């Protein structure tokens, strides 16, 4: 292999709304938050834990007795966040703090809007600032504010009592820079030129397309480059009859494993150009490329595979690739 350029890489965004059932104890804690109240749960030793937990952290006994605690408390420890990260409670510098609320015995982790780190100290008094639109989660507390001397607390009127919160949805978004392996990068760059590049394992001589960072049989990187034709056979297939979100072709259509001539591994693609029920194992197919102007570093440059009309490959010729 004569790899000199760096592997291809691109941003990869991973996002998912984590939806969790809360159960009785956590559900009542979340319901209280939506009503702008903070509750704790009484532990086996009488200590009040905030946030409420379902099981005692020391004895592991199930806990069930929720008790109201104050929305003011004392900072037991803090660290400073000079440049907040995405998703954190405040967009400007703030203090993370372990806050023991009045009436609680264990501290809650949350943010304190203290301006600068000079505004933070252990033992300081803080008060919950409620979010404008409560949803039934810990973010209903927007953050905590330092309690200034004799400034009276100004709790907003709680929303009307309503049904118990039963689920919690947390959007999770993580950002990555995904890198393809050097072998995959050769393959992807080849696709942009309309070439199908596989690589041969130096140990077992199997040809992989896409090539692998290591041959799954021998554990060594594939090395020798092999340019493959855009013709091959269908090894196995299924007829898709079920509509689903994001589907681009009207069912029924065929998703098939296509084994290119000279390759030892098949890849999944579409077989169009004939009735779905006419597709067979061993059927000869060839690539239908998109117009060159639409090409990118992707196998989608091939729109689909279509039957060539040649005689089917005998079963014995591909049986070991199933």
């Amino acid at each position: 292999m004569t790899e000199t350029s760096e592997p291809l890489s691109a941003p990869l965004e991973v996002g998912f709304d984590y939806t969790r059932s809360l159960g009785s104890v956590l559900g009542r804690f979340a319901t209280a938050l939506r009503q702008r109240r903070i509750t704790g749960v009484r532990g086996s030793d009488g200590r009040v834990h905030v946030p409420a937990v379902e099981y005692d952290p020391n004895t592991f006994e199930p806990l069930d007795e929720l008790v109201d605690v104050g929305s003011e408390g004392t900072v037991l420890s803090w660290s400073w966040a000079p440049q907040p990260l995405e998703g954190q409670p405040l967009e400007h510098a703030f203090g993370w703090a372990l806050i023991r609320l009045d009436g609680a015995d264990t501290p809650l982790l949350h943010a304190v809007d203290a301006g600068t780190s000079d505004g933070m100290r252990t033992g300081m008094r803080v008060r919950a600032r409620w979010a404008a639109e409560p949803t039934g989660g810990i973010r209903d507390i927007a953050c905590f504010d330092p309690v200034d001397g004799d400034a009276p607390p100004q709790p907003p009127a709680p929303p009307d009592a309503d049904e118990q919160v039963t689920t919690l949805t947390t959007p999770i978004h993580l950002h990555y820079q995904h890198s393809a392996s050097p072998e995959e990068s050769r393959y992807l760059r080849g696709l942009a030129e309309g070439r199908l590049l596989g690589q041969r394992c130096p140990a077992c001589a199997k040809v992989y397309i896409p090539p692998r960072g290591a041959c799954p049989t021998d554990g060594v990187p594939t090395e020798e480059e092999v340019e493959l034709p855009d013709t091959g056979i269908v090894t196995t297939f299924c007829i898709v009859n079920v509509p689903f979100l994001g589907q681009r072709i009207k069912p029924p259509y065929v998703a098939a494993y296509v084994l290119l001539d000279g390759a030892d591994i098949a890849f999944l693609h579409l077989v169009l150009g004939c009735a779905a029920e006419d597709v067979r194992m061993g059927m000869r197919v060839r690539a239908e490329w998109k117009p060159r102007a639409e090409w990118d570093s992707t196998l989608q440059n091939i729109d689909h595979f279509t039957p060539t009309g040649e005689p089917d490959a005998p079963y014995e010729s591909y049986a070991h690739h199933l």
Partner: protein
Amino acid sequence: MTESDVAVVGFAQAPNVRATHGTTNGVEMLVPVFDELLDGTGLSKKDIGFWCSGSSDYLAGRAFSFIAAIDAIGAFPPINESHVEMDAAWALYEAWVKIRTGEVDTALVYGFGKSSAGELRRTLAMQLDPYFVAPLWPDSIAVAGLQARLGLESGLFGEEQMAQVAARSRADARQNPNAQVSGEERVADLLEQPYVADPLRAHDCAPITDGASAVLLASADRARELRDRPAWITGLEHRIESAQLGGRDLTASPSTSDAAGAAGAAGVEVAELHAPFSHQELLLRAAIGLDDSVRISPSGGALCGNPMFAAGLSRIGEAAGRVWSGEAGKVLAHATSGPALQQNLVCVMEG
């Protein structure tokens, strides 16, 4: 040694670096690590009885990334394999049990992580309680800072001691060709550095590291064949604390104390501690009861290279190396996983 004993007989690691070009499934890092580990043992990959790995899909940004890593093994014919979504030191625990059952007589344990692919501080928020803590996205350095201040303000240690840990680690790492960070630092100069997250300075925090490591375990008979002076595992224990941060005493590490007591830590000469933050080394030394005569993390430790999901396993390999060389008779390796030392493993080895 009895026939049920197990020894550490091999260790290899990838260089600890800030970023690699490799994929997040670790294949490029693991292929040479496996080659180095097996080189000289007379074993091939086909001879390994059991494979066990530690890694994380959250670090990789894709599902089942550990399955893709198996390409580095050459898993044909099919292999006996398992995985833990924790530091690979816990995979070593599983492999140790597997050998002790008599089912296999060798096991290769590996861990890998490409921390540079994502935003490590945010990704690690996924380890926190998913109901009422993780939705705030507290990052790993913020949580460690809360723990450090509790220790500082309760008088357990001072900022100068934290800087001493960093200075000693970097000085030791000059002898470690795989270390990511090393050098000569004056404590006074370190204390002049700005906070990155008050009360933590940059040198108090492990660097972001890509890396992988692997350890070879063997049963008593095989161990004697494979190495003149195997590092016999005489104690291996792990404990976990509550997921509720506020429910724990963050200035102590009772799970480490319990694991160390059960593993028989008394009398060790060298201790490789998995402390990604300087203050955590101080907490761990107190929790295990290590006095000043014990050599701490001569490799430079996690502050000089912290490949996620491999760094704890590396501590076991580094400590075992002190036994193989005859430098020490009894050593200890510690691994941690989770936020603020939530889960801790202690492995005691003797020559």
